């Protein structure tokens, strides 16, 4: 496909985005070596795929956008990396992200913020902003991210590319540095549905190293359907609130009209517990994170931020205080609080119960004959850098339409459905568990007809 040096050149041209963490010379050298060793018969032979920096690689450091893992080189690689290599793909470096995938703007990286490829004053979304920006800028045809509450779909929407979060358990998490283990899935960015689907197919399937990964064969790619005849698309009314950005609403209306024109039946549905999704998510994800991030203590790996610790508690305090950024510290504190004796029932247990209700909402909709749900991916197009930094809750609300798929473990995809003032707008399709093929068929059909770069 593309030779290694050309790949490195293309990545070098978008340096201004700060999307790539791997130094250019190191990346060039590695790409040349990888290309020489790549399997020529692999289905992704020669395809460069960039990886979010929370996916473990042998070739490059894995920092998760954090100072606490500065210079950390994993002694093993993620299962998805092994699968990509076996398919002949080239690992095209590690991409910048919000620290430990916590954020919606890629401003919370210890290595500086990522610029939106179309407007450097704006954010590319997050937390997988580096991967989204690289694909949007045309530097790579595909990249991997991770999606815990929308961290693939939201930046895909902001940057105008396709982003897929598969069903929980479809792709192995082995080697994905954990944030919220019950929500995390590795997802794929592509310039097109097809590019993203090809990569998803390669990385999907069973892995004996991940007990939460389903014992299933890799996803088989569907063919592009002639029409959407026979598809029933549900429009959950809670995802179209009265204060939705008018341009986003117009773009969604146009997409719905186009799906109808292709033969889809469209019907309004209700997911009544949607308003609880963000608060539920911001209890459960920090709770799991507070435990997942306990291992970064300066004892075994990573930098220590105290030269001569007098006791172990002082070492922990100094290392974790200096090694984690403010957003990560905030979530560790919240997570620790909601799990504490005396608060567990009011927060963690209640959130688990609410999660079950959200799962049931989706089940009810699908049980009533709906195949897929269509929603806006985000309430608005890409916002300006700094706009939401001072107000964490407004930042958290940019995930309002995406967190539900994580809470319910469902596959979901964002694809570009229009632009407003030059900024991309994404539409989201949510499918039934392990029915990614249906999701992809509908996405193919919509992609084919939607004027993705035009104002609605």
């Amino acid at each position: 496909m593309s030779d290694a040096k050309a790949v490195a050149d293309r990545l070098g041209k978008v340096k201004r985005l700060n999307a790539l963490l791997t130094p250019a010379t190191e990346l060039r050298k590695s790409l040349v070596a990888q290309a020489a060793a790549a399997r020529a018969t692999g289905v992704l032979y020669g395809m460069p795929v960039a990886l979010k920096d929370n996916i473990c690689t042998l070739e490059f450091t894995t920092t998760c956008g954090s100072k606490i893992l500065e210079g950390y080189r994993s002694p093993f690689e993620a299962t998805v990396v092994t699968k990509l290599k076996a398919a002949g793909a080239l690992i095209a470096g590690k991409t910048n992200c919000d620290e430990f995938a916590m954020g919606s703007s890629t401003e919370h990286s210890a290595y500086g913020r990522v610029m939106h490829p179309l407007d450097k004053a704006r954010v590319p979304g997050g937390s997988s902003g580096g991967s989204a920006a690289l694909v949007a800028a045309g530097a790579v045809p595909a990249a991997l991210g991770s999606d815990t509450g929308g961290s693939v779909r939201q930046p895909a929407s902001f940057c105008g590319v396709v982003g897929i979060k598969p069903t929980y358990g479809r792709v192995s998490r082995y080697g994905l540095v954990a944030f919220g283990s019950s929500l995390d899935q590795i997802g794929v960015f592509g310039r097109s549905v097809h590019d993203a689907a090809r990569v998803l197919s390669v990385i999907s399937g069973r892995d004996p190293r991940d007990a939460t990964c389903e014992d299933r064969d890799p996803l088989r790619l569907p063919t592009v359907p002639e029409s959407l005849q026979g598809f029933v698309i549900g429009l959950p009314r809670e995802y179209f609130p009265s204060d939705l950005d008018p341009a986003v609403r117009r773009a969604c209306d146009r997409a719905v009209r186009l799906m109808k024109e292709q033969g889809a039946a469209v019907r309004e549905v209700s997911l009544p517990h949607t308003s609880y999704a963000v608060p539920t998510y911001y209890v459960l994800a920090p709770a799991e994170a507070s435990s997942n991030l306990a291992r970064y203590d300066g004892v075994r790996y990573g930098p220590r931020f105290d030269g001569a610790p007098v006791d172990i508690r002082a070492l922990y305090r100094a290392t974790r205080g200096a090694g984690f950024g403010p957003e990560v510290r905030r979530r560790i504190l919240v997570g620790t609080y909601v799990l504490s004796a005396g608060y567990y029932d009011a927060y963690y247990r209640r959130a688990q119960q609410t999660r079950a209700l959200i799962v049931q909402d989706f089940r009810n909709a699908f049980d009533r004959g709906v195949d897929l749900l269509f929603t806006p991916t985000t309430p608005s197009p890409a916002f300006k850098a700094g706009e939401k930094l001072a107000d964490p809750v407004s930042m958290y609300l940019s995930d309002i339409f995406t967190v539900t798929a994580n809470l319910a473990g469902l596959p979901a995809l964002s694809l570009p459905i229009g632009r407003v003032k030059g900024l991309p707008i994404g539409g989201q399709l949510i499918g039934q568990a392990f029915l990614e093929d249906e999701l992809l068929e509908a996405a193919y059909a919509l992609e084919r007809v939607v004027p993705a770069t035009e104002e609605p």
Partner: protein
Amino acid sequence: MGGGPVGWETVIGLETHVQLRTASKMFCGCSAAFGAAPNTHVCPVCLGLPGALPVPNGGALKLAVRAALALGCTVHAKSVFARKNYFYPDLPKGYQISQYEQPLATNGSLSFLSPERGLVTATIVRLHVEEDAGKSLHDRFPKATAVDLNRAGVPLIEIVTGPDFRSPQEARAYLQTLKQVLEYIGISDCDMEKGSLRVDANVSVRRPGDGALGTKTEVKNINSFAYVEKALGVERDRQVALLEGGSAVAQQTMLYDSKDNAVRAQRSKEESHDYRYFPEPDLPPLVLTDEFVAEQQALLPELPAAKRERFVAQYALSREHAAVLTASRAVADYYESVVHAGAEPRAAANWVMTEVLADANDHQEQLRVSPAALSQLIALVKGGTLSNQAAKRVFVEVAGGRGGDPRTVAEALGVIQVADSSVMAGWVTEVLGAHATEVTRYKKGETKLMAFFVGQVMRKSNGKADPKLAQRVLEEKLS
């Protein structure tokens, strides 16, 4: 009771951690073997490296289920792994994978012989599976703590009793019974010195007749069986002294120091007050099918209590002898092999309880004489070929591996009993001739001297004389 303080009742509950006998660790493929060079049995999973994930060890789950069944627990079709969160350098992930709200098994029991109350049944409140932490070595390097993670991730079960023991002696008796059961079913080597069996105790005292329990403390760091009674006795006495002095017992963790035979309160800094348990999201709920549980049940051997009762009934042994013979599965199996090889059950019991166990005691618990050989030896005694005394000499020789089967050894030693009355008559004549005084006394009515004469004949014959024949010949000559 039990030498405890007068006017007080002691209440003890035990939490026992038992290392399961598996080749590999609970959630990764690393070796679980004890004693390797530090940090050599480690991998990304048990080191808790970023991105690594746990996968349950099916073999460990089988052993845990067998333990639960042996203790009469209800094994739950669904149980849930949970994270127990705390910071410590030998806990690489910052949490231990355990079980909390939904343990593997609950509601079992174990009967044991209390030295004070006879047969007592302790409640097994719960039994759950978890992984071990690593080891902190504070004495290896000056002013530094070393961490060895070979043990991190080794599979454990925790067995929690109710507050069912009324003295340190009872606690120890329960532990010995528990150890016996676990060794029988082969799920652990239960070696306290290696740390494969560890005990924490909850201790409180109250006035007899009080319904409510007193404030309890948790006693930790009890490193050997011998210290169980000592540590609990020290803590009981400390609490009684406090209460009698008008103070109150504070709920806290006490560490036992075997050097001083004393307990000290754990510094609050060392204590983790809130483990923030929550379900482990990296592991789906543990679902066990009925077939799986039934398979484990079928694999359970006869348990010590059942075996003891059977020995009493089947071999007409006293309860005490049956208890000695069933103390370990190896000895019980050995005993039954001797019987199956043809030995009379009670004779076999006597031999095993005396010569065999004494020899094993001196030789690292090895049972050095094969059941067939012992059975042959017993037959030689019964048939009059060997005296008991000679047989014991033969046993020692056979145990030492010298000279083949018992008959060959007996021949080589020249201790085959002589049943020829003319030879016997010669020895008797010699003995009587050499002890004229005793002969006179015997004839005057001191018949108890017969034993003396028989002994002398045995000595003269180098143990070859058949004592019964010797006595008959002596009686003839002395009448």
